[in-house]
């Protein structure tokens, strides 16, 4: 049900029946390493190319989530997914393997929550009993497509971010046990004229703040409603800026714990990730691996995940265009009977 200008309130309380997180070696060495379902110690995931490796991660995460939900592929009505690669090949090719009716979406690194919001909306509206939301990214495919060859020796500035290798998937169900998706806010594209592709955090921070403020306005909530609010991949620079912007706009963010998935997944003091993490999988594996486990265990009751995405292409920044950004928020709360 539409609430306010750009939010959905899910009155039929779709639940996340099961969720999975599959990551690469660097993520496994990070502080959340123990929370992930599968940690691969080989970046190639046993595949011939980086692109195949990313696809393999997506397939593994999807199958794992379906299996953990006690279902099989034929019971999942729709798969909503996307990724960072040209023509979202990782998700589409994974959907070919899974054989589930598929909707490909692109929101760059905000795809995790965009797909989850859409899956929840489909289930809430009675369009499916089970829907799968998923996304993936791979450090080497992102480097190859957006930056330089992976083995090229260029010095990254301190504002740069490290794309997470991993995939996350969630099975959204009409009923059953599990954390409930209660609301979602779809963001608009915000562009404050930042052009530096090595400073995505600064480019994305205004989009995250825009969506956060829209969410609080539409649902009549304040930050204190949530135990935890996390942004997707603003990392150190963007997180800092977003705090400043929230303060400037009079949002009492100090009422809650406010963090960023891009800061949680790596330990910046001992891992070579510059400002922190980025990538579709960043918010996906932190939300599906770490946060959902905390909700299930009762440590957290209400969490808002605001996944952030930079909607640029290598072509657009080489042509001197600024970086348009977006953020989508999904509110996940502890189910009644857990």
């Amino acid at each position, binding site marked *: 049900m539409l609430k306010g200008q750009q939010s959905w309130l899910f009155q039929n309380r779709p639940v996340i029946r099961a969720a999975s997180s599959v990551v690469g070696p660097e993520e496994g060495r990070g502080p959340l390493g123990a929370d992930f379902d599968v940690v691969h110690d080989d970046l190639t995931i046993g595949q011939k190319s980086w692109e195949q490796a990313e696809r393999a991660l997506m397939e593994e995460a999807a199958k794992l989530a379906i299996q953990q939900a006690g279902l099989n592929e034929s019971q999942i009505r729709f798969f909503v997914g996307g990724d960072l690669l040209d023509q979202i090949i990782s998700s589409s090719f994974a959907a070919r393997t899974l054989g589930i009716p598929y909707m490909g979406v692109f929101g760059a690194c905000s795809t995790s929550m965009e797909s989850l919001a859409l899956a929840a909306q489909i289930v809430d509206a009675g369009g499916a009993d089970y829907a799968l939301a998923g996304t993936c990214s791979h450090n080497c495919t992102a480097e190859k497509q957006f930056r330089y060859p*992976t*083995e*090229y*020796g260029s*010095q990254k500035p301190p504002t740069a971010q490290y794309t997470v290798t991993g995939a996350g998937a969630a099975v959204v169900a009409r009923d059953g046990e599990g954390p409930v998706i209660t609301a979602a806010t779809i963001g608009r594209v915000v562009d*404050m004229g930042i052009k530096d592709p090595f400073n995505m955090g*600064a480019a994305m921070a205004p989009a995250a703040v825009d969506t956060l403020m829209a969410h609080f306005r539409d649902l009549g909530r304040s930050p204190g409603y949530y135990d935890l609010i996390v942004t997707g991949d603003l990392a150190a*620079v963007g997180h800092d800026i977003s705090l400043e912007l929230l303060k400037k706009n009079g949002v009492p963010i100090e009422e809650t714990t406010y963090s960023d998935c891009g800061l949680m997944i790596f330990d910046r003091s001992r891992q070579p990730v510059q*400002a922190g993490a980025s990538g579709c999988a960043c918010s996906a594996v932190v939300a599906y691996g770490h946060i959902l486990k905390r909700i299930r265990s009762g440590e957290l009751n209400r969490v808002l995940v605001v996944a952030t995405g930079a909607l640029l292409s290598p072509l657009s920044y080489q042509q001197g265009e*600024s970086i348009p950004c977006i953020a989508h928020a999904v509110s996940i709360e502890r189910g009644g009977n857990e």
Partner: protein
Amino acid sequence: MANGSKQNANPAQQQYQALAKSKEPKRPLLLNCVRAFVTGGLICVLGQAIMEAMIHWFGYDKMKAGDPTVAILIFLSVILTSLGVYDKIAQWAGAGTAVPVTGFANSVCSAALEHRSEGLVLGVGGNMFKLAGSVIVFGTVAAFIIGIIRAIVGEGGGS
């Protein structure tokens, strides 16, 4: 915002860009210079050592000893790139590993490795100069211009 430079950004954007700039951690310029000097210098020392060895032990004369020296440095760089080490050294060394001939070799080798999955012709052949290509183009253009200047101004300098 199609071609939006800072001049035609609106006031809100200008204000935000100033805030973002103030929050941006600066590159450690002085430290980077020192690191580049040390690693770049070490690579040159290694090159000099190889050259001396070529002259003293392999019978090259001073003019010709540069050829095997460059070949060996390129070979070493390609080995380090293939082992996945060169980019890690480069993150520390910056221009120190980018400027010498080893950096050029790394740019060609890394692109060739990266695009091997797209095949030998379209992948390796079509992409291995995608980073080095501009160095070759503008190096040639610069040499051409200097050559013309030298022709006009007269011989001068050199031999």
